[in-house]
């Protein structure tokens, strides 16, 4: 652990520090939204598989319903990429 007191830090150190925080933020954006998608998708997926077991034609409808919450993680990813590259 490097102990940095802000008052003594050089400009480079502060910039590096901020880059680290941005990376943590990006990681949280993807990670948390991924967990959220997972939680939302698990119930839908289970129900969709159940429905498909009864009627195989429901595959496409099941797929559509299952992937709807995936948008959440895409949002997270976009935010993460914006944070890191812009």
């Amino acid at each position, binding site marked *: 652990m490097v102990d940095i007191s802000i008052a003594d830090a050089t400009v480079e150190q502060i910039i590096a520090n901020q880059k680290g925080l941005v990376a943590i933020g990006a990681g949280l954006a993807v990670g948390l939204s991924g967990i959220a998608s997972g939680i939302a998708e698990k119930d839908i997926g289970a129900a969709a598989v159940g429905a498909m077991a009864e009627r195989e034609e429901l595959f*496409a409808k099941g*797929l*559509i319903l299952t992937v709807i919450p995936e948008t959440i993680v895409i949002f997270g990813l976009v935010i993460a*990429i914006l944070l890191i*590259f812009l």
Partner: protein
Amino acid sequence: MLKAKKVSKAMIVGNKSLLDGVVDVLYQLNCVHIEDFDKEDSFLSIGRPGKAATEASNKLVKLRSFSNFLGLKPHYPDTLANQDSLLHEMDDTLDELDSTISRLTDKRNYLDNELKTIESKVVELEPFSQFPLDVEMYKGYNSISVHTGFVRSNEMETDIRNITTDYELFISSYNKMQVIALFISKEYEEQIAEVLDKNAFLEIHIPELTGNPQQLISGMINRKHDVEIELASLESEIDTLQKKYKDFILASDEVLSITTQKAEAPLKFATSDNSFIIDCWISDDQFGKVVSTIENEFNGRIFITKLDLEEEEIESESIPIEYNNPKPVKPLETIMDLYSRPTYKEIDPSAIIFITFPLFYGIMLGDIGYGLVLLTLGMVGIAKLKEGELRSLSTLLAYCSISTIIFGILYAEIFGFHIFGHHSIVASLMGEHSALGVAFHHFDLLPILDRLHPNDIPILLIASALIGVVHLNLGFLLGFRNMAISHGMKEAVLEKISWIVLQLGIAIVIVACMGYIPPAGQIIGAAVAVLGLVMLIAGEGMGAILELPSILSNTLSYTRLAAVGLSSVGIAFAVNEIVTTMLFPEGGIFIIIGILVLIIGHTVNTVLGVVAPGLHALRLQYVEFFTKFYEGGGRKFNPFGYIRKYTEVK
């Protein structure tokens, strides 16, 4: 293309005496979709199945049970069987097969049974094999009761001794349990029952045998081996039988299926005392052929006429749908069927997803190396499979891999390595100063987009969102066309064009905010967007406001084109880095480990490269694109007839 095949409703009427002939002709034509006759409110009755039906279906049931017993799978025959000679020999061969197979079944059942009996007896006897008693000695006493079985602990002897000393107890351990054989006078029955109960006694019955248990068991094990050998020879007999009769069974199955289908066809017809009426659909390009064939065969004694479609019939989903696509687009019909067939009036988007599906796939995977691997897989699939869904999917894989290779060239990637420029894999493998190395090193027109370079990633992201805007608006335009035809121009404009106006407004606002046009553009853009919103509310009601964010989420959803690709190239890059910077420089055994890591890593990534881009490309079609215009729910056009695979008629 873009529309289902045009079909006409037709009616075929004739005298009942010609019924069989008509069925034969229609069957051979294999292009007439026969509609089931609905008996409700009709003075006509359903036709009777032909005489051949019962016999043929009985034989078919028999044949299918044989093919089940022999474990037959459909395959492509080397030679086609002649239908007449097949029918000639069918009865005799069927009888022969019947007797052989029932003999084999009996034998197999007998052997299986014997095997089970032996196994259960061994299980029963084994615990007692350690006691020095013959099996018959456990039974047949007048004044002594015998208890055989398992108990939890071996401490029960003290309990017994408290009752009496006049007993004989054998005890030994078996599989973590205690086996006992207790011989005791019948007068203590009740007390003993209590003691046994206390020790959780589990009774086992001794089988009805005589002799030393150990000898009995070894005898049974010998017999078990014999039975197993007999079973194995039985299986090989079944195998030979399968090889011998495989072609016969599959060919007969086909002939009999055809016979039953033909014989049962009248069940779909309406009949009166002397005539029959067939209600059917024929595609317009085949109509002339059907009419002229029927005219020629029956000299005008059969009447066939085209019926006019009523407006509500075109609206409903009752018209059977046959795709009308050029051959290269056919594989995409599998993807369409997975969702739902189009209805008669709507656009059939197979030809559109023929372009967009491989395009999206290529944008995501975009790697020459993976593209070549998948192309090989697809080609093998096309060569091995002659028909069916898997063949369509293989063809689709080949299309996708070609697009993957094209984007691989644009990204200049091969298995996650760069081929051109400063990090060229060719230059580092061949030596930087070799002719090829120099060529690849200095060629820097490619990559057009470098997915491994941070500067290019936002460009890729924006490009994929723009692709999304184009794709979505194509969907709205198609929706406009479908809606205009089914619900009229006004609703089409309000419900579909409104979205485009709304996007246009937002686009003007964004461009104005970025300073490309004067700031007044912001107000104009906002006005346009509000106009779009008003149109939308007029078309779909206030509920449309809830739909508004979907335009944002739908567009952003296309950024997966960039994101899925980045994850794939990320894995490839990580594998390559581990191998080239950490393993190879160590030398020796690490070179071999490095090669293994490369192979495993890229194999895993190839599998992921089929699954992830495939599913995401599919989802963009189904969720983002289709929901803008597509309803589906059409019925399959199912022509009455059969495509022969195993037999021919001479």
